[in-house]
């Protein structure tokens, strides 16, 4: 862990925040607390996106995940909270099996990371953040991601119409 200046410090702070709140999400008893720890985790991930030079994605992460999806999760949790305190009994065998799976995934991730080309640490040479918005926009609208973009938007449209259809009031024709 080399201390390469202020950027590393902030990076480690964000990483610690993300990991700690992720641990809290799965271990805390109160499910509403878990949802709010998820919020902190997603914030941390947004910070990490900034370090990956993805500024637009960081802001989108906050808007979509924290401001949209997490609100939905919270609505779900609060409306259907029959048992707020989850006292899950975990057997010893399940704990060992879960730990094994987690270890395997960790090894897999390490393998992926170390085999990634062009991977470098955090450069602390005062380089500025180039704006990615224009690049993303051009790739989506003019580049190779035009078709997936349109397909995804049609999918969202279908979901929207479906939700509106399911939740509307029945209009009965009065005779």
């Amino acid at each position: 862990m080399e201390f390469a200046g202020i950027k590393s410090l902030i990076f480690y702070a964000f990483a610690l925040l993300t990991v700690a709140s992720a641990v809290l999400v799965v271990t805390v008893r109160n499910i509403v607390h878990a949802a709010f720890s998820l919020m902190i985790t997603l914030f941390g991930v947004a910070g990490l996106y900034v370090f990956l030079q993805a500024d637009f994605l960081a802001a989108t992460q906050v808007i979509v995940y924290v401001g949209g999806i997490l609100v939905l999760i919270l609505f779900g949790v609060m409306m259907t909270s029959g048992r707020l305190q989850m006292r899950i009994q975990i057997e010893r065998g399940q704990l060992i099996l879960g730990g094994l799976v987690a270890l395997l995934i960790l090894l897999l991730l390490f393998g992926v990371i170390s085999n990634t080309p062009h991977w470098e640490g955090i450069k602390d040479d005062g380089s500025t953040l180039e704006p990615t918005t224009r690049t993303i926009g051009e790739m989506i609208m003019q580049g190779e991601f035009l078709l997936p973009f349109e397909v995804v938007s049609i999918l969202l449209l279908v979901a929207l119409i479906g939700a509106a259809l399911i939740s509307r009031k029945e209009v009965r024709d009065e005779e």
Partner: protein
Amino acid sequence: MFDQIQQIISNSPRVSSEATGNWAEEFARNRLIPILEHLPFVPAGVAEHFPVSLGTILVMFGACGIFVAIVPLIPLVLVLAERKVSAQIQNRTGPMRVGPWGTLQTLADGVKLIFKEDFIPPQGDKLLFVFAPYIIFACSFAAFAAIPFGQGILISDFNIGIFYIMAISSVVVMGVIMAGWSSNSKWSLLGALRSAAQIVSYEIPLGLSILVVVMLVESLRMQDIVGSQSEGLFSWLIFRTPFTFIGFFVFFISSIAEVNRTPFDLPEAESEIVAGFHTEYSGMRFALFFIAEYANMFAVSAIAATLFLGGWEGILPGYDFLGGMPGFVLKTLFLVFVMMWLRWTLPRLRVDQLMNLCWKYLLPIAFFNILGVGIWGLIFPKDSRLSIIISMAIIVVGIIVTYAVAGKSLSKRPEPQPSSA
């Protein structure tokens, strides 16, 4: 005199439009560490080996400290302004006793709130109860970091400036839900969920009207947006196309709904749902909510002024008339005054009328704006005098025609007939 004040203020961390390096680091390197050599009680050699990163952290904390010291004064002034303005509208005088003409009233209120009992609902969620005002407060104030007050006067010139502000405003919803849930009261929860639904719904027309501006300016940076309005009154984005004219009103209405002001203040109105999600809060926590609401009001007015009314650019192209920081603050305060004016003019909307307004009226209008601006950008790719003249003409003619046509149909309504027996 304003120029001198502006000079003094903008001699501190200054952002140049070309390179967005870390201003804190440059400040630490160029100003702070050389100052260390001049301090009397610092041993020699510290200045050379002083790590720049530590200096950067110190400068950042210092800037945050100044920020936190100055920005909360804005809600203090706004609370008093609201009381005086609403009193004037209602033919009374507002607070007059505390301080000359009642100017120290907010301080007295703050002191009173500090002395109140700090009551945390015993069956509620203590941790969330404590955290909710902090989240709302922090997010309302974090939006100030990206608002340009003057030529070089802003905390940080993000590449995604306006998008960052939208992102931070979305987090306020979480704080509201937290506050409603942890109060352990049906009314608070209901008010919080209604407020959350309202804020989330009105973010969409808000974002779409911001999109209209960004389409014209072709950049998300706040300084670019303001810079494109630098040619006098008629290059303000509100006049540039008739669609941004409509977009300004969509933005303004959505932002009134975002800050939970009348006519959209169903979640927190005094006579409804017993003050909604901040019912159970008392003392300084309630003061935090209040301060956050007024800071949010100021922030969205500032954003509207930046996006549509030219930010810190002046009215005349050459001279700096009504420009710079005073001009910007004046425009923002004018919009805040309009918000207060609307509060005492309009009755409150019911929650279904609110949603109706958002999804059936504001959203189609916002989409129509985007379409219009797209077509406009095709017709007039470069802003010229011709395009501005045509847009002003369309705006004026549109207003006149709408008034004439709809006014006529207003007066042509059939007389109520007595029903025949």
